[in-house]
């Protein structure tokens, strides 16, 4: 396979889309539909499913052209859809018809997706979750409570991990499903976060019914399917943009440049260190894209998530320290929904508070360091109090 030929194929397709569907004129959904049809949503996906069957490293070629022409960043509009649901559906949905049925409206952002993984009793220890799914003919009946579900209030579809065998050890008794968030038995209640807004939710499942056709992967194989989702999640969250100086660090650098009256040498070195860390991570993402194959992301994606999350926090801590007394004000704590528009991240202080979640969501930094230590470096695992026990005998709380 010639990379150069693939690269120009991707570039040609992107230029054609931009020419025929000028993103500054046509509605976003129409533009994103054209991208999907041209195979530019996930270039490494098969043709017909939003891809061109080329190396995933070439996604940046497409994104560069589409976004330079004023196209949206689709990940920001449907983050769980683009980052996590799409790769999981592509790999595990039962038929090509279902894949197409789910992927195209996902790509256009007509259908927002959410992820029903975490529960009050199962966060880092995701495999310990308690929500049950019981087979009833061609359907499954689901009962339980999920929490911290981002975008559940806007979502049409959800990725669900549920327990189908409480007698098996915890990783073995899980099965993975797609749930209709508008179906009966699914109730969503907003949760307010420290920024004042309600970005995530509690979701109650009371006898919610799922057709067996909407199961992803085999019964009892849910953990393996969930790993597809989580590895993709981690490699898609990150602070660094694809061009030098873009991403979160741009907030600190532009604020610095706009306030020469606040400069001190100590702050300057602190900002330079942050810039350097962001640049080193950007180059690392570029390097892993360049060397990536058609397959999914490996555990190395955890590096980007770990660094990105901590860097986000440090960047906004820097901004707050730069501003001093000017920074300790806020705009509005009224509880409201987060519109995912261009400036959805809000004023600086909101971004600052929001960054506290970065080291928790999508796997805490402690869990990520465990993953890097165990999965990448091959270090021995922790002592486990729950190893090998049937799930129902494991202490919880």
């Amino acid at each position, binding site marked *: 396979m010639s990379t150069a030929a693939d690269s120009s194929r991707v570039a040609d397709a992107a230029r054609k889309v931009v020419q025929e569907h000028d993103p500054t004129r046509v509605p976003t959904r129409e533009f994103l539909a054209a991208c999907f049809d041209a195979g530019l949503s996930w270039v490494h996906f098969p043709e017909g499913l939003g891809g061109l069957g080329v190396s995933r490293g070439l996604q940046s070629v497409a994104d560069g052209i589409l976004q330079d022409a004023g196209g949206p960043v689709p990940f920001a509009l449907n983050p769980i859809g683009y980052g996590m649901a799409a790769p999981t559906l592509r790999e595990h949905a039962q038929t090509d018809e279902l894949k197409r049925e789910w992927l195209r409206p996902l790509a256009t952002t007509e259908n927002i997706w959410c992820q029903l993984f975490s529960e009050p009793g199962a966060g880092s220890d995701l495999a310990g979750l308690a929500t049950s799914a019981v087979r009833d003919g061609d359907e499954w009946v689901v009962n339980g409570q999920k929490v911290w579900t981002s975008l559940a209030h806007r979502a049409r579809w959800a990725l669900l991990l549920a327990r189908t065998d409480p007698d098996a050890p915890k990783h073995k008794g899980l099965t993975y499903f797609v749930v209709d968030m508008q179906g009966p038995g699914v109730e969503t209640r907003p949760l307010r976060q420290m920024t004042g807004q309600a970005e995530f939710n509690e979701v109650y499942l009371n006898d919610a019914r799922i057709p067996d056709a909407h199961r992803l992967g085999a019964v009892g194989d849910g953990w393996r399917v969930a790993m597809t989702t989580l590895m993709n999640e981690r490699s898609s969250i990150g602070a660094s943009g694809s061009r030098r100086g873009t991403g979160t660090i741009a907030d600190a*650098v*532009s604020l610095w440049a706009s306030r020469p009256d606040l400069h001190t040498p100590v702050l300057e070195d602190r900002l330079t260190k942050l810039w350097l860390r962001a640049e080193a991570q950007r180059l*690392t993402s570029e390097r892993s894209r360049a060397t990536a194959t058609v397959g999914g992301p490996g555990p190395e994606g955890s590096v980007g998530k770990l660094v990105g999350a901590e860097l986000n926090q440090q960047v906004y801590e820097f901004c707050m320290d730069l501003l001093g007394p000017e920074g300790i*004000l806020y705009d509005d704590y009224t509880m409201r929904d987060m519109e995912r528009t261009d400036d959805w991240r809000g004023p600086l202080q909101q971004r600052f508070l929001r960054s506290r979640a970065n080291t928790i969501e999508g796997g805490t930094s402690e869990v990520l360091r465990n993953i*890097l230590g165990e999965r990448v470096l091959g270090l021995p695992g922790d002592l486990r109090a729950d190893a090998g026990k049937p799930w129902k005998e494991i202490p919880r709380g």
Partner: protein
Amino acid sequence: MADQQDARPFVFSEEQRELRTAVRRFAADNADEQAVRRLMESDPGFDTKAWARLGSELGVLGLSVPEEQGGVGGTLVDQAVAVEELGATLYPGPVFGTVALAIPALVAASDGPVRSELLGPLVEGTRTAAVAVADRAGAFDPAAVTVQATRAGDDWTLSGTVERVVDAAAADDLLVAATGPDGVALFAVDATAGGVERTPLTTLDLTRRQATLRLADAPARLVAGPDEAERVIGHALVVGSALLAVEQVGASQHLLDLTVEYAKGRLQFGRPIGSFQAVKHRLADMLVDLEHARSAAYHAVWALGDGSDDPALAASIAQATCSEAFARIAADTIQLHGGIGFTWEYQAQLYYKRAITDAALLGSAEQHRARIARLVLDTASGDGAPAVATG
């Protein structure tokens, strides 16, 4: 060897992978830890026969020397692959003086009999060189030159002192920056000539030696005149910074591998110490630092080759990142080995001393950050700064 540009940044060719394997094997055969210790405690500090084989058999001392100058016409990436592997074993020999600085300086100088006469034996490994140019944070500063050049007809003589010249004690050729009647130029001095006095110094890192160079009317030949000396020396320092960064990556990778193995095998409290999160998480942070260092160093060697970035900025990014990473990884290596890490017998100390030495050469991380601040922050725009809530 790739004969033109390396096509895609960060992607090594099949030939480059083979080159890596060959250099790694050579280093394992000729510079295992025992050999390194033996050589570092004897003179001249390296195995001259093995060095010549590196030049002639493996051909890895002047990989980016163009064919018309007698080289193999590879790229800086090829050279970086070799330097990374030599760094992994602390290969004793004048990698810094000869490969990282002298050869790049000569390649950048304009053609002439002096250059071709010097370059061949350096690339072959039959002679070695050191560069006696005091840098300021990895950049050339003509005002810092401490040697005077005097002309008598076609001949030049040099007088003055250069402190702490890496690889000078054993070098055959010395490239010296000196101020003459028309400005600063770069000269070559035969180390055995009259008027050349070298005082070997006891260095923190015994595998990377230094000497103080005193010249008293020492005969010299012109390599690069005042019209090009600044460019030539500047080029050598930037290439040297990138290659030093790659060496730091090679050594850091070795230490991470070493420490991971130790943490898997060492049992305390009835478990491998690598199962304790305090140990595991430190190792995870070492991995992140190493990945960042590798990306920054590779970016520099690729960018210097294909011109895709400002060379000074790319070199400073690499040096600021790799100096810190190697020093921290080496310190953590000692820590995670417990008492044994602090001993003379264990190899951690050798790498720690190299890490501290490399960090100080060609500019510290702090100095490179200061340069980055000038290049990046001073030119940044305040447009698009986030709104600040005003209550």
